[in-house]
């Protein structure tokens, strides 16, 4: 398909593995870095120093300072904790919940399936961010609430995938053979269904990290996520946007941070997708 398909399958696989290794390393650096972010900042990200307010980028302050004289580089680094960590938590959460609901629906069928699927239909009928906006509005701001709001609208997608995959596996011959040979339900799900549906779910989740990160930042931008003075990339951009005309770097620094992190996770997601694509097997 892509340019990569022209290579020989074996070469292609190696190339993908190499690509995976690079992007996984970058993503890992981001995650680990955000965990230790407080220790990595050159300055205290919350310390105000009005005498150097709105300073242009310099050696001492590579991204300049904001209107309270806080070092932007330090704030961007600390912001990674809120942005990256919350996003990962969110994606893991919806993946687990969605998958469980999906497997239950697909496995049980009947009434429970109908009810849960109708409920997911209703959630899917809302345009993404609109519903999250409302949930966040009801619950009030805060990163935690923004994560819950986005989670509330995102799980049905995973439930759908897990359900259809479960149904497909359930109908397969090897599954019938396993049922006939008297495997217990728990064992069937854990040993046969789950390993077979992780592929598509994992790919969806990986590709969702970037989207979720941007939506979370969007909510914060609207004041529905992290509240100042907590450093978060979206709210930092919103916070400093009236400086755009005169001191654009203050606004762009967190923007570029979002951009780069989303890019790393998207690249990783694409690679995982290609890697799990059966067309690239052999």
């Amino acid at each position, binding site marked *: 398909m892509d340019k990569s*398909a*022209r*290579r*020989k399958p074996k070469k292609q696989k190696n190339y993908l593995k190499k690509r995976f290794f690079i992007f996984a390393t970058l993503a890992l650096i981001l995650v680990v870095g955000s965990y230790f972010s407080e220790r990595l900042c050159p300055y205290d990200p919350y310390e105000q120093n009005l005498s150097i307010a709105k300073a242009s980028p310099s050696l001492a302050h590579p991204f300049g300072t904001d209107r309270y004289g806080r070092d932007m580089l330090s704030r961007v680094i600390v912001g990674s904790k809120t942005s990256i960590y919350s996003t990962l938590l969110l994606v893991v959460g919806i993946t687990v919940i969605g998958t469980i609901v999906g497997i239950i629906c697909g496995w049980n069928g009947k009434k429970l399936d109908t009810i849960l699927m109708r409920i997911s239909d209703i959630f899917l009928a809302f345009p993404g961010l609109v519903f999250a906006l409302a949930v966040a509005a009801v619950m009030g701001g805060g990163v935690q609430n923004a994560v819950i709001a986005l989670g509330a609208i995102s799980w049905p997608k995973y439930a759908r995938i897990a359900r259809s995959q479960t149904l497909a596996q359930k109908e397969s011959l090897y599954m019938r053979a396993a049922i006939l040979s008297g495997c217990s339900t728990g064992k069937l799900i854990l040993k046969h269904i789950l390993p077979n549906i992780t592929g598509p779910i994992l790919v969806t989740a990986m590709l969702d990290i970037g989207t979720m990160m941007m939506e979370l930042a969007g909510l914060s931008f609207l004041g529905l996520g992290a509240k100042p003075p907590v450093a978060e990339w979206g709210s930092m951009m919103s916070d400093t946007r009236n400086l755009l005309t005169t001191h654009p770097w203050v606004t762009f620094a967190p923007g570029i941070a979002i951009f780069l992190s989303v890019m790393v996770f998207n690249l990783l997601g694409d690679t995982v997708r290609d890697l799990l694509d059966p067309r690239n097997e052999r």
Partner: protein
Amino acid sequence: MSGIICYENVDICYNGSPVIKKVSFSAEKGEILGIAGESGSGKSTLIKAAIGLLGKNGSVTGGKIWYEEKNLLDLNEKELRKICGSEIGMIFQNAGSSFCPIRTVGDQLLEEMKEHRKIKKAEFEDEAAEMLAKFGFQDPKRILKSYPFELSGGMQQRVGVAAAMLLKPKILLADEPTSALDVSIQKQVVEQMKMIREQYGTTILIVTHNIGVIRAMADSMLVLKDGKMEEYGKTQEVLSHPQSDYTKRLLAAIPVLRR
């Protein structure tokens, strides 16, 4: 070598690895040449190369394919496309999927005709209906109005043959035309191809793994193994006195059917 179509030491590579090695053969006007071999031996690739259907990953890396004093491999895409359909037709294993699913058969046949000459719609309909009637369709006008998926597998295959013969090409390439069909319909298609040769003097290159089909219609045959020619000669000679061990084994593997 002479003949209306002539392969000369043809090499073909897919993704850089050779799949056809130094294959040469030729076919006269009105000759039916059967190309046999197991799946993966490169037999479909061999005929697709003539009309540039190898796709992005495949390419002819050596040799020549002569058609009436022209080397088909030297033609640019436009020139080659002109020859396709009008002078060299092709039938696919699954003719149904060789038509666009969301347009009617008539639309696509008209399109084919218009590519090669100016024609009015009414004129086209008569011509196309006549051709379809030759292939056993009772109500050809209805077929023209149908979508491919509305036809049965056997009907699709016959429409495929009719589409390939629409412009009365001099050469017909047939890629496993019978493999996806029921035995009774297989026979029908074989009969129709013989009829084509009779009526139009068309040269037919037929690729199949079914030796029975070759026995039933081919004048000469070529056995391909791993992209190399194992055996090439008159069908009767090859079938009764196979020279190479591989051909012997291949023939021995066919269940004998009484006709």
